[in-house]
């Protein structure tokens, strides 16, 4: 049996604007996605902001009703058997909210344990274990309002493991964390993976998905545009090389000209303070560098590098719509 099964799931939001002349707009957040997650698998949903990741997780955790389609978690339908689903899952939404800040960490866990119907003697044993797992054993008697963002996120992880759920939904758990906090949290996720928990992780950090996930579904504009292992996704760009060029103040029209060059497969531009990083994917490799330099029309150039494609490049290609297969 699949731990999670999603079949042609849709979700549309209705947005109303105006006071006198009211208009109604329908925004499609999830547009017919289907996927399955096996027990013990760590499945990643990777996509840009607004792609539909959080909406998908909210439907699977019974917090949102689908507009159409079906989904089951641990064999239970998320609409008709919500109570059974809720008993078997744990979830985290990225960010600091969702805790009682004026209570201390231990009391937060004690309260949430009762809400998950964990017997008091089990909770008394389990809470210190979880506090140790997430590295908060020395701060458990302090009010949560004094915790750093990373500590709050780790408390969320402890909260979600209180009732030892079969399936975990982690929605951008490392968002906003400093590198050390994010690394600590990824280690906790690895530990949960070792315990054979089924985990659905959403993220827009490529390296995180690459490092943690068994399989990744790339979601964009509410659709799954690719679904494969991290290695399988990288093969989408195995025929390409990546030229990274650091430029200073490149005009938008020059970017458009480069994008239309015959040897350019995809082009991504990343702003870095005063500079921009152009990331060109091309089948011609380093041979394309002279033509690329010539097309920069005198724009000041910094470092130039030719390298093998990464998962991030595969992702850029997929969400740019160049490769819609999968």
């Amino acid at each position, binding site marked *: 049996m699949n731990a999670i099964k999603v079949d042609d799931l849709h979700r549309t*939001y*209705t947005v109303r604007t105006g006071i006198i002349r009211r208009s109604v707009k329908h925004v499609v957040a999830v547009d017919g996605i289907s996927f399955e997650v096996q027990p013990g698998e760590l499945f990643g949903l990777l996509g840009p902001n607004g792609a539909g990741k959080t909406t998908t997780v*909210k439907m699977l*955790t*019974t*917090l*949102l*009703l689908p507009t159409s389609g079906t989904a089951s978690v641990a064999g239970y339908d998320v609409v008709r058997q919500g*109570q059974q689903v*809720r*008993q078997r*899952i744990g*979830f985290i*939404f990225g*960010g600091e*909210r*969702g*805790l*009682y*800040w*004026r*209570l201390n960490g231990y*009391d937060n866990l*004690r*309260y*949430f344990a*009762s*809400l*998950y*119907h964990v017997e*008091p003697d089990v909770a008394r044993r389990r809470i210190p274990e979880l506090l140790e797992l997430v590295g908060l054993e020395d701060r458990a008697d302090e009010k949560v309002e004094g915790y750093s963002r990373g500590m709050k996120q780790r408390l969320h992880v402890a*909260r979600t493991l209180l009732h030892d759920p079969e399936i975990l939904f982690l929605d951008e758990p490392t968002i906003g964390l400093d590198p050390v906090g994010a690394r600590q949290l990824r280690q906790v996720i690895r530990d949960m993976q070792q315990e054979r928990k089924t985990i659905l992780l959403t993220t827009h950090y490529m390296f995180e998905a690459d490092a943690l996930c068994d399989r990744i579904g790339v979601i964009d504009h509410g659709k799954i545009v690719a679904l494969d292992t991290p290695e399988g996704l990288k093969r989408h760009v195995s025929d390409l090389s990546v030229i990274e060029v650091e430029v200073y103040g490149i005009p938008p029209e020059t970017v458009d000209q480069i994008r239309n060059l015959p040897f350019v497969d995809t082009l991504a531009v990343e702003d870095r303070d005063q500079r921009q990083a152009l990331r060109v994917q091309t089948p011609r490799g380093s041979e394309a560098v002279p033509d690329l330099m010539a097309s920069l029309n005198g724009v000041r150039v910094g470092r130039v590098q030719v390298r093998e494609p990464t998962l991030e490049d595969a992702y850029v290609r997929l969400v740019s719509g160049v490769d819609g297969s999968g």
Partner: protein
Amino acid sequence: MIRLRQLVRVALLSAEMGLRHAATDAFVIFAVFVQPLIIAVLGLFMLRERGGDYGMFVVVGSGLTGLWSSLLFVSGNAITTERWTGTLEVLVGMPTPLWVVVLGKNLAHVLQSLGSMVLAYVAASLLFGYPLTIAQPVPFLISLVFIVISFVCFGLLLSPLFIVNPDVQRFQNGLEYPIYILCGFLFPILLLPGWTNPVSYALSPYWAARALHAAAAGEATAASLALDWGLMLALGAAYIALSAFLFKRLLDKARRDATLGFQ
């Protein structure tokens, strides 16, 4: 299947956490302790000029005002507060029904508010030298237990009502004094126009105030107490049934409209 024992445990822990949480909230401290004290002092000043023994009436009445203010603002806003803190989604995604959590929080507020009655008692006794005696202490104490049940149920109705119908919430401040008056907290409803009486009868705090005032003054009879306690329980059951319907409607609507959390 969730067992009753588990739900009772959650409600009690929710009450404990509610008390701990509220202990750090200045507004709750004001609504529960300061405001009823002000009302008690004003009432006692007015009644001292008038003569007669009204001390206990004011003590009970001002205590009930504290109870109602706390319920109206804290319980009424319970779901909104959970939404703002981001805990509503967490609570709704858990196996415990949301109404059990709110019920526990209401219990905390009601117990806390009973403290305001004690405060008014001390103020009347020490500041104004009123001889404060409860004429029928046993019926008075039993009435207090019924009042806790009755107000907890009344508060349970407020949270989903305020969410399902935001228009009611807009008049939240305006609801404070009409209930003081309609429920006879500070003066008998006999002084009100007759057409308002049916409204008073549908409100369990009215029967609570009636039982307490009568037991304090030594005017309670077995028949009057049976009527007051019976109606507190009956109305409490009706409020639970109505709130269960509203909670279900609220959560269905929130899941459909995506309004459980702020994005």
